């Protein structure tokens, strides 16, 4: 089956798109040996900086370097403005959905989303019912995954509202590009992104009713795949990086142990899942959280960013309703498209999915990181048959979507430069206002033909440019 892909750099006739022309000229003029040398330099620098991630499902807990590609993904500013508005609209509606869900449940009463699908969802947290949050914000930090179909239109693949990661790669990729190729940034104006840590700190501070709250970053520890990022963001924001054992609760207030004694903590940027936050309230085996944290949170003495219970809104079974949420809460039409989604919990849609597995992407509703998914067109007969059995055993746990063509971007590979599929994750910050730094993290599937961009599945990253057009 012939498929047409939208290429970010070249149009259908093979001509360089206008916003890539400066770069294309530079690429043609730069000697191949110099590029090769700079690419080796980049690897070395990333390695020295310790920018690695741990691979799950690998017995050795191997730390790997995420491959970095020096050909940037570039977005014309006029196009970016639409994406930006679309992401902001979406995250605003999702925050309103969460506030509604944990209070009046108007959207359920209006019959727009089946109540059982939301309330019996694993991500729905009874602990959040009736709890009032400052500014009614739940997802202070969101990562919206976008892809482009054959005609170049943007689609939202998923909304990450729990602990989205990757922003450190966005920032480090830019630093690397500016260090290796300063001339590129002199030749044209690329929108800056280095203020992200300031915006993040500002967002975290504005999540608390206090004037100058004490903010910390809570990490599960150095064995977590994103530990580098936790340490990086704490350092960039100038706040403490803590683990659960550094914190304790006394009389419904949260404190951190310091050499100068106990110091109260007001805002926790937590990079720990709900289930591990408080072993006395959630998973009793968790050694990563802080006993008593939930009671302290419910007393209003500490802010958690993101809030507990955001997972119900980025669940893949709730995703098909985001368009309706935007209409319901904002009275606007969605700016960004949703990928058509089959809900396997519905018998008619399940039988369609089972009959068309070869063409579809099937995902777990609760899954993330590209684990436990089937990419029909790329799977073997045996893989499809094995997946069919899993799907039949527990249909409600899966959704399916048509395989999108995913746009490509020229990328350095062993044989030279070749198109590889990419996605985009802009990071949306919600505080006093909703803001995004231009661009986001571009992930690239380095294997030829692969549509899975997750770093755990062999994906790499690219610097992402927003350029004036």
């Amino acid at each position, binding site marked *: 089956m012939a498929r047409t892909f939208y290429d970010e750099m070249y149009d259908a006739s093979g001509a360089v798109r206008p916003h890539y022309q400066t770069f294309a000229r530079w690429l043609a003029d730069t000697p191949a040996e110099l590029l090769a040398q700079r690419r080796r330099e980049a690897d070395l620098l990333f390695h020295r900086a310790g920018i690695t991630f741990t691979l799950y499902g690998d017995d050795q807990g191997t730390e790997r370097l995420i491959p970095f590609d020096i050909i940037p993904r570039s977005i014309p500013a006029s196009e970016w403005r639409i994406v930006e508005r679309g992401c902001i609209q979406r995250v605003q509606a999702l925050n309103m959905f969460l506030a509604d869900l944990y209070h009046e449940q108007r959207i359920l009463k209006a019959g727009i989303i089946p109540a059982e699908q939301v309330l019996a969802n694993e991500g729905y947290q009874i602990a959040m*019912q009736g709890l009032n949050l400052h500014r009614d914000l739940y997802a202070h930090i969101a990562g919206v995954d976008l892809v482009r179909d054959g005609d170049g239109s943007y689609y939202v693949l998923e909304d990450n509202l729990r602990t989205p990661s990757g922003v450190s790669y966005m920032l480090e990729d830019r630093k690397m590009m500016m260090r290796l190729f300063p001339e590129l940034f002199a030749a044209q104006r690329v929108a800056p992104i280095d203020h992200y840590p300031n915006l993040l700190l500002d967002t975290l501070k504005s999540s608390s009713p206090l004037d100058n709250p004490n903010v910390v970053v809570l990490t599960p520890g150095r064995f977590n795949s994103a530990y580098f990022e936790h340490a990086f963001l704490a350092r960039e924001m100038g706040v403490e990086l803590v683990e659960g054992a550094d914190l304790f609760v006394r009389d419904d207030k949260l404190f951190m142990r310091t050499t100068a004694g106990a110091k109260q903590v007001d805002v926790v940027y937590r990079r720990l899942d709900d289930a591990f936050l408080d072993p006395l309230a959630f998973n009793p085996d968790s050694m990563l959280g802080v006993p008593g944290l939930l*009671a302290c949170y419910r007393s209003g003495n500490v802010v958690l960013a993101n809030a507990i219970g955001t997972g119900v809104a980025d669940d893949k079974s709730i995703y098909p309703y985001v368009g309706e949420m935007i209409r319901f809460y904002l009275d606007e039409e969605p700016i960004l498209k949703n990928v058509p989604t089959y809900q396997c919990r519905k018998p008619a849609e399940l039988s369609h999915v089972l009959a068309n597995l070869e063409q579809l992407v099937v995902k777990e509703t609760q899954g993330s990181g590209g684990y436990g998914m089937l990419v029909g067109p790329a799977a073997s007969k045996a893989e499809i048959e094995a997946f069919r059995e899993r799907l039949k055993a527990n249909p409600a746990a899966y959704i399916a979507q048509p395989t999108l063509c995913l746009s490509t971007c020229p990328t350095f590979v062993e044989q030279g430069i070749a198109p590889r599929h990419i996605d985009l994750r802009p990071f949306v910050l919600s505080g006093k206002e909703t803001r995004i730094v231009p661009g986001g993290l571009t992930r690239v599937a380095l294997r030829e033909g692969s549509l899975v961009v997750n770093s755990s599945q062999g994906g790499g990253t690219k610097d992402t440019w927003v350029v004036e057009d």
Partner: protein
Amino acid sequence: MRLSIRHDTHYHYEDQVRNSIQYLRLTPHDSERQQVLSWQLDLPRPVRAQLDPYGNILHVLTLDEPHESIVIGARGQVEIDESREAEHESQSALPFLRFTRLTEADEALREFAMLQSHGRPDRSGLIDLMHALNAHIRYQPGATRVETSAVEAFAGGQGVCQDHAHAFLACARSLGVPARYVSGYLFADSQDHLASHAWAEAWLDGAWYSFDVTNCLAKPERHLKLAVGLDYLDACPVRGMRRGGGGEQMHARVDVAPLLQVQQ
């Protein structure tokens, strides 16, 4: 009927505990069935009461001075309206359809639930299911532990009230009936069973109905409700953690007695 409750728990540790924290759900609240006439918690230090996610009264006791023992006392009087079978609530019951690790239903439990309720997820179906579970999981103290799941207790065929409640929750939820765990006290004429007790409630026709599998009671009698939740972990009277202390010895004594009333 008016009940008088006295519940004392002593924890003794081999070594000094450096610090500890406990979530205590030891205070009943008023409901359609019960009216709390008086209640008092005796704790090592004063603690403010709050409501937990399920509306239970929660005290969080934090001790950060070294200690070798903790004594927790609860006492009070509660009037029980034995004529009332069910309790109403405005919150949606749908979150109680969710399975937890302790209330997961495997194929065996699902089949059992379907068979014993005759595929009828109504009150009479659940009453039949309750009797069947009581027969299947023989009351045997010591056969299970607090971490034992419904699946394990069901497969082992013995357990205590906690296991009975978990197995019932797993079955009811597998039939699509929201169900929750209840911890509380039971006044029993015979002292076979501890006065600290656990049972289940199922959401039927807009109200919570009790199912005490251990005593085969589908109508609460001298049941005093302390707390509810998805499972034992949410509703248990004491859930705590500590640093240091080594081995622990726990002694609990519960007295539940009817109060003689001079006048009615």
